[in-house]
């Protein structure tokens, strides 16, 4: 049977099949939704600090602080207290730096246990403490434990900085990140420990984005 003058139906079918094979790869893609380990390489891409980096830098900082012994040099019966400050972000990648310091606090408590007091010096926490103490003192709420104490002072401050060096030329970009941490004695201002974490990314821009 012919569908057009000079062209049989089977010829047309095979033409369509050939065209389909060529175009097959342009088919719409499905979506992905699965749980992955935070240590798994980031499939999304991007020249940014990722979950792997945050976990690694927190782990590295706490290991180095513990190895330095700075926070363990106290007279018998006393405990060092410390608070962390969000990292100053000087890079070109906006990041919630509290996430990094929160992770470090968690790792510090895990590593030092009862040998270290981590203080919450966030404005929200200080405000909550102020309000609760005022309520207790006025008798508006009960002081169930019966204890009163001054707000604890800190012996050390852990702070840091995120910096980057981004080089970009046409379709290539490299981004070097340097995250530095330092532990400062809040009596003497002496920096007892300083550590850093480095990461570098090399990206090539997709042809469809150029």
């Amino acid at each position, binding site marked *: 049977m012919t569908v057009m003058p000079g062209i049989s139906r089977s010829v047309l*079918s095979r033409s369509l099949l050939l*065209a389909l094979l060529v175009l097959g790869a342009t*088919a*719409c893609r499905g979506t992905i939704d699965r749980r992955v380990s935070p240590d798994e390489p980031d499939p999304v891409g*991007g020249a940014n600090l990722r979950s792997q980096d945050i976990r690694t830098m927190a782990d590295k900082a706490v290991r180095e602080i513990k190895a330095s012994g700075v926070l363990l040099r106290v007279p018998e019966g006393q405990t060092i207290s410390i608070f962390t400050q969000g990292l100053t*972000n000087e890079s070109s990648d906006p990041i919630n730096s509290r996430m990094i310091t929160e992770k470090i606090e968690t790792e510090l408590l895990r590593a030092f246990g009862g040998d270290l007091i981590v203080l919450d010096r966030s404005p929200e926490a200080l405000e909550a403490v102020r309000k609760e103490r005022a309520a207790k003192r006025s008798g508006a709420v009960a002081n169930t434990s019966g204890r009163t104490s001054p707000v604890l002072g800190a012996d050390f401050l852990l702070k840091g900085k995120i910096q980057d060096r981004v080089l970009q030329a046409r379709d290539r970009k490299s981004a070097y990140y340097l995250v530095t941490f330092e532990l400062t004695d809040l009596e003497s201002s002496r920096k007892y420990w300083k550590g850093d974490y480095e990461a570098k990314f090399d990206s090539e821009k997709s042809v*469809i984005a150029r």
Partner: protein
Amino acid sequence: MRLFAAFACIALLGACAIGMPRVPMHRFVGGDVAAVADAMTEELANGPRENEALVRNILGQCELMLGNTSAAFGHFDIAGRIMGNWSTSGGEEFAAIVGSESSKHYRGDPYEKGMNAFYLALTYLWRGEPDNARAALKRGILADAEVADERFQADNPLLFWMAGRMSLLMGLEEDAASFFAEAQAANAFVAAHGSLNDRESVVIGAPAAGNVVLLFECGMGPQKVSGGRYGELARFRPVGHPAAGAEVFLDGEPLGRSSVISDVDYQATTRGGTVMEGIRRGKAVFKQTALVAGETLLRVSAFKKGNKAETAAIVGGALILLGLLTTTRADVRHWPTLPGSVQALCADVPAGAHQLVIEFLDGGGRVLPELRQEWSIDVPEAGESWFLFRSLPGLDRTTTP
């Protein structure tokens, strides 16, 4: 039946092209941003994922105008991450090259990335994070450096100027001086190359001045359209809107007129050619050639017999089909709710509550009464206050972020 199925398959393949989200622009221009926000929320939930960054950007703007800075921050943050990601999957790349370019994820042109950086920086600043605001601006500056035409790379004074002010808030004076110098150089360059920027801009000339920074989004940004025989060329055309500037009164006294810090139309039209444009042109040539060659082969097959005729007919038919199905149209998705320009006015204002009246002006300096806005602002004892106003009707509010 099988023929019909094959055609249906091909039609499905062609259907991967993603169009512009349905933005009710008449409502936006009329100031009904709540309706636009509803439409974009619906689009975000049920529209194509490939448009997520675009939809979130529009939604972010609407939330800003509705006073929901926290929600706006979330949208601009996610959109910025999508737009700033350079990597794509092999499948997406192949589909955009071989099939329709608009099957890819929207990541925006450099001027759109710059505007995302601007909004994101403002929302970070309002969250009390000048360092992240500066990071967003630096990312916008890097995106502007992706412009293909090297003469127009990193020439957005707005981003440099704001990065300088954020540096001052961070206590980094040397960095601030460097950013301000870049802002002045960029401003002089764009002013000399046809932008609306004022060469003698008061704001850029005294970049650190004032404890109150008033930003104005005037007019409407450009529209991206396709051109060329097969729609393979992406072009910008300006969108008419009367607002060209703003005049401000504080507590009944004139405070001054705004000056253009970023001409969005200029930033869009100076992006230069793209690699994809070359590919689309190549596809247009292929499309034309395939159609001609296919037709020729079909004609030849009519004069031959046996296997040769069959082969010529198969290849000819395939070529015609490929030619017909080759999508050459440029991806013209764009951010339609951007302003035509971002303008600024900085002033030293005493701490306390103040009444602010903004009169938007047309190109001839005449007041546009329907766009008049009255605001109550509260200036703190220390630090800086930043405010953003849009030249749309009905956006008066008594409080600011």
